[in-house]
Every structure is written in C-alpha cells, then in structure tokens.
C-alpha cells in the first residue's frame, strides 16, 4: 500500500498515467478556482485572490509541461536507456495528485483568513483581522497538511523521474534536484508572465 502511494509507477506509467494525471490536473484547476488556491510555481500552493478558471488551468498545465520538459532534457543525456517523454510526462502528471487534496483545503475559511491575519498582526498591512485560537490552530494544522502534501508530491516526482530514466542514486538525486530548482525558476517566471497578461487583458 505504501509502495503504491509513494511509487505507483512500478505498476502504472506511460499513457495510462498520463490520462489519469491530466484528469487530476484538470480537477485540481477547477477545484482550485472555486476554493481560491493557485499554484504559482511547480511546488507552491497559495491562497489566490480569485483567478478565472482558464488562468487556473493554464497555470497547472504550465507547471506540468515545463517541469516534464526540463526533467526530460536533464535525464536524456545522462541515462543509459532511451528515455521516453511519455513516461516523464505521464509520471509527472500523476505526481500532481496530492495537490488535488491541497486544492480542496482552500475551502476552509481559516486558511483564507490566516494570511490576512498574519499580515495584519506582523506588518499592520491590509484590513484588521481577528481570529479565534481554534481557527488559528486549524489554519496551522492545514498548513502542515499542505507541507506534507508537497513532500508527497516531490517524492512521487522523484520516483517518477528515477523509473522513467532508469537512473541510480546518487546520480538520480543530483539530477532531480537540479531539474527541480530549474523547474521552480522557469515556472515562476512563466506563470508571472501569464499573470501580467491576465491583468492587461482584463
């Protein structure tokens, strides 16, 4: 069971994984749109000011496509085997499954209010916000859950990368970390550009 949760790619990869993964990405975008959770780069999940649905879908697709492409370009020259783009794309699409749960967490008002509360409490910015100790505890609990979901997603991505490229440690870890850092930077820049396009067109 643990193996299936953290490394499902032993059993599923390629086309099947891609199909399920794309459904997951689409569902995450739709839920994120309604729960006000957006993903400004491949790893981050943040409370959004209410982005349109097409922006949420584009953001999630960018995170997946750019990361898959970077990981493929990094793995291909170092792998002894032929790396198939469908395996990288499929495993990375499915790896975003934990963020489907992260998107639903946005429905809790405690998480929505906590950002504003911290901003007001520490920097005296925004509107004054009062939160009960119960709501604060719930918000912290939800943030911890978010963190665990991120760890789960990164583990899935790493296992997908390792199995798709047949790379062994420590080479696999080194290449993956390099790819992840590049992916974070690239997705952050592209999504930022997308945000500016959205601002100018609306």
């Amino acid at each position, binding site marked *: 069971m643990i193996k299936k949760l953290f490394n499902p790619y032993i059993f599923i*990869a390629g086309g099947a994984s891609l199909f399920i993964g794309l459904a997951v990405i689409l569902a995450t975008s739709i839920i994120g749109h309604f729960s006000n959770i957006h993903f400004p780069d491949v790893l981050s999940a943040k409370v959004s000011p209410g982005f349109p649905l097409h922006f949420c879908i584009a953001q999630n697709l960018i995170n997946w496509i750019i990361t898959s492409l970077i990981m493929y370009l990094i793995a291909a020259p170092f792998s002894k085997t032929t790396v198939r783009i469908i395996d990288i794309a499929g495993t990375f699409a499915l790896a975003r499954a934990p963020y489907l749960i992260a998107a639903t967490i946005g429905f809790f008002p405690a998480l929505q209010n906590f950002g504003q509360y911290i901003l007001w409490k520490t920097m005296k910015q925004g509107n004054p916000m009062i939160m009960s100790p119960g709501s604060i505890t719930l918000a912290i609990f939800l943030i911890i859950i978010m963190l665990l979901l991120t760890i789960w997603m990164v583990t899935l991505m790493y296992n997908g990368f390792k199995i798709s490229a047949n790379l062994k440690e420590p080479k696999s870890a080194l290449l993956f970390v390099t790819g992840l850092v590049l992916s974070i930077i690239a997705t952050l820049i592209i999504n930022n550009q997308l945000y500016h396009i959205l601002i100018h067109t609306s």
Partner: protein
Amino acid sequence: MIKKLPISCPSCSHELNVQSLHCEACSTTISGQYSLPLLLKLEQHEQDFIIEFIQSSGSLKLMAQKLKLSYPSVRNMLDDLIEKINLLQNELS
C-alpha cells in the same frame, strides 16, 4: 521440492565451479573443473525474466501486462540484466 542450484559459495560468496557430473542412467561420474555457463551465473529471478522475455517474443509491452508492472519498470529490469550480462562477459574474457 525443487532444489535451488547454488551459484556462489555460502561461505565466502565466491563464484562456484562444477566439479563433477553424473549420469543417472549408467552411473558414470565425470570429475574435473568446469565453470558454470553464463546464464547459470544469473540469479533465479533473472533466469525467469529471460525465459518470460523469450516466451513474450521479446515484447516488453506484453511482459509488462503479464507481470502486472509498468513498461518502464520492465524495461529497467531488462537494462539492469543487460548490464549484468555485459559485466559477466567482461569477467570471462
């Protein structure tokens, strides 16, 4: 019970050789020093993989279906096996 052919020494893990061969029909025993053929130097599960691969007409896709594993998992198993065979061949030559 099917007896497992030992391929390495249980004491020092060194590769084992064949010292005698016996004919059950006429009880002739041949003694000498024979090294194991390359395929027998592989682990049992690796030998099973090769047999499965041949029976699947060399189709990794078919093998993945039979073994209920993903395509890259089976391909990686084959790649690792190729690497091991190359290593054993280099040791022999």
